[in-house]
């Protein structure tokens, strides 16, 4: 199946390519011939070059305009750009899942989301994912001729292609369908710490134990180059915005490192972070369930533990 076209929907940050796209391209290279799909105006040369460096043979772009915010319009553009693709890889997030679900219905493709990997087995695509708050591993086979796979950020390590792809720029014509939905307004939101929580390779979260003071959590996140997360307790208290909530109903994260500070580890929270690479916990309560899933835990007051850890990490960085 190595000549199969594997389309990768590019996750954009304005004119830049987001890191999970490079991970998706790395995975796509193992499945066939990667083709990157950029929804929007012609991508800048730097972005095309980067996509090619990670193996994109072609970079297809489709101009959709403001309607790109509507799943039906975005799906129509994606359909036009991926008509010859056997597999479409998307970054698993809410908006991409909406777009891809429409595409799956239009094309009859089988769809798996939140996957941590994919491979060909006897001519069928199989994916691996974790379910039930990451307490089970599941392998799923796509029975349909075409497959759509949503991959979680940080589950494949992005690696440059041994030989870059051609990165041939191709414009795709799209007829955007008439829509009944109207976009009334768009209020841009500045990302809090640069990297969205769901894509961060390091997440430092604070819960009830912070008593609402996130200074130490932010400082530790800063020194580790990570994003700041929170438990539902903390967002319910109004200590920090809902967009920081890690959990089954908030953001699901799978960073290489997750540091839980003053978080007991209720099932709700664990469901959103249990598949993380390395889990570190600081909690005053030795019975806190978070310790059951922590690779390294400190039973203690985070107001003692975090300042010392931060100081030591600073020394290490300086040395």
């Amino acid at each position, binding site marked *: 199946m190595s000549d199969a076209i594997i389309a990768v929907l590019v996750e954009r940050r304005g004119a830049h390519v987001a890191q999970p796209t490079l991970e998706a391209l790395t995975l796509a290279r193992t499945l066939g011939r990667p083709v990157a799909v950029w929804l929007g105006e012609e991508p800048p040369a730097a972005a095309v070059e980067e996509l090619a460096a990670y193996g994109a043979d072609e970079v297809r772009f489709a101009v959709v305009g403001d309607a790109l915010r*509507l799943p039906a319009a975005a799906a129509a553009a994606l359909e036009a750009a991926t008509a010859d693709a056997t597999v479409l890889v998307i970054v698993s997030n809410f908006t991409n899942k*909406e777009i891809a*679900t429409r595409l799956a219905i239009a094309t009859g493709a089988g769809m798996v989301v*939140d996957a941590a990997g994919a491979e060909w087995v006897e001519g069928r695509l199989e994916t691996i994912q974790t379910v039930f708050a990451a307490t089970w*591993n599941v392998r799923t086979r796509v*029975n349909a001729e075409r497959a759509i796979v949503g991959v979680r950020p940080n589950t494949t390590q992005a690696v440059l292609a041994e030989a870059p792809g051609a990165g041939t720029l191709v414009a795709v014509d799209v007829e955007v369908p008439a829509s009944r*939905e109207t976009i009334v307004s768009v209020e841009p939101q500045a990302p809090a710490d640069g990297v969205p929580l769901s894509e961060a390779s390091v997440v430092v979260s604070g819960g009830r134990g912070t008593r609402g003071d996130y200074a130490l959590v932010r400082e530790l996140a800063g020194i580790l180059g990570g994003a700041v997360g929170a438990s539902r307790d903390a967002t319910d208290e109004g200590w920090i915005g809902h967009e920081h909530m890690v959990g089954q109903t908030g953001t699901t994260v799978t960073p290489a490192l997750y540091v839980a500070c003053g978080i007991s580890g209720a099932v709700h929270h664990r469901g959103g972070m249990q598949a993380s690479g390395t889990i570190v916990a600081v909690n005053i309560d030795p019975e806190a369930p978070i310790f059951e899933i922590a690779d390294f835990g400190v039973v203690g007051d985070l107001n003692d533990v975090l300042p010392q850890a931060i100081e030591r990490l600073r020394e*290490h960085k300086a040395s």
Partner: protein
Amino acid sequence: MRIVVTVKFVPDLQSTRSFTEGYVTRTADDGTMNELDENAVEAALQIRELLPEGECEITAVTVGGPDAVAAVRKALQLGVDHAVHVSDEAIAGSDVFGTATVLAAAIRKIGEDAPVDLVITGMAALDGLTSMLPTALAQYLDLPQLTLASTLSVADGAATIERHLDDAHVTVSAPLPALVAVTDEANKPRYPNFKLIMAARSKPVTTYALADVGVDPASVGAMAARTSVVDASPRPPRENRVIVTDTGEGGRALADFLIERGLA
């Protein structure tokens, strides 16, 4: 105004969840209505409360085996007016497209008496968490799609929602009939009170088989599923875990662990 709310029967989050022969184990003992569907029910109830008595009717609908009736019973306890349960052996093993096909057919059937103005769903089910169903349902019913709604208002024959995305807050509006999927930010679900719980006991649940809603059994179920689970196993616990008690060196130990692992 007629509103249909979709609800799902899922294993309780606090219970031990598992797979049996490739399918999620679902039994009444540890099953419940999907928590995120409480937000969908609440959204419907709040719309009804804004309208004069008797001018809004809410029907909860679920698809699933015999135990799944517990999900619509819960919706009745919360205050919806009617309950529909689509149950048929042929549905077992359906993927999200099969489930959405059956739900869409049931909603069309409910619409035969009088048109449905609004279909409200939760943002995801806490078992699979794929959040694909609302989009699929909108497409099968050919309704405007207002999903990931952190706010919802219905006025002058249109629904308006706010979507809180990573890069922007987007306000979208569509004329009714429409499908809305609400997030857990949209409202704070109420608890059922004693009076409603008692009243719910005597409320009937309408049960449909696939033939009643006009769905070909071959188009749903395990045989029609575009994906199937080929292997499921519990994840092994993490190995070599280290828990230390802070006696003055805890922070340093934490930092050293990160440095040794190459994480700092």
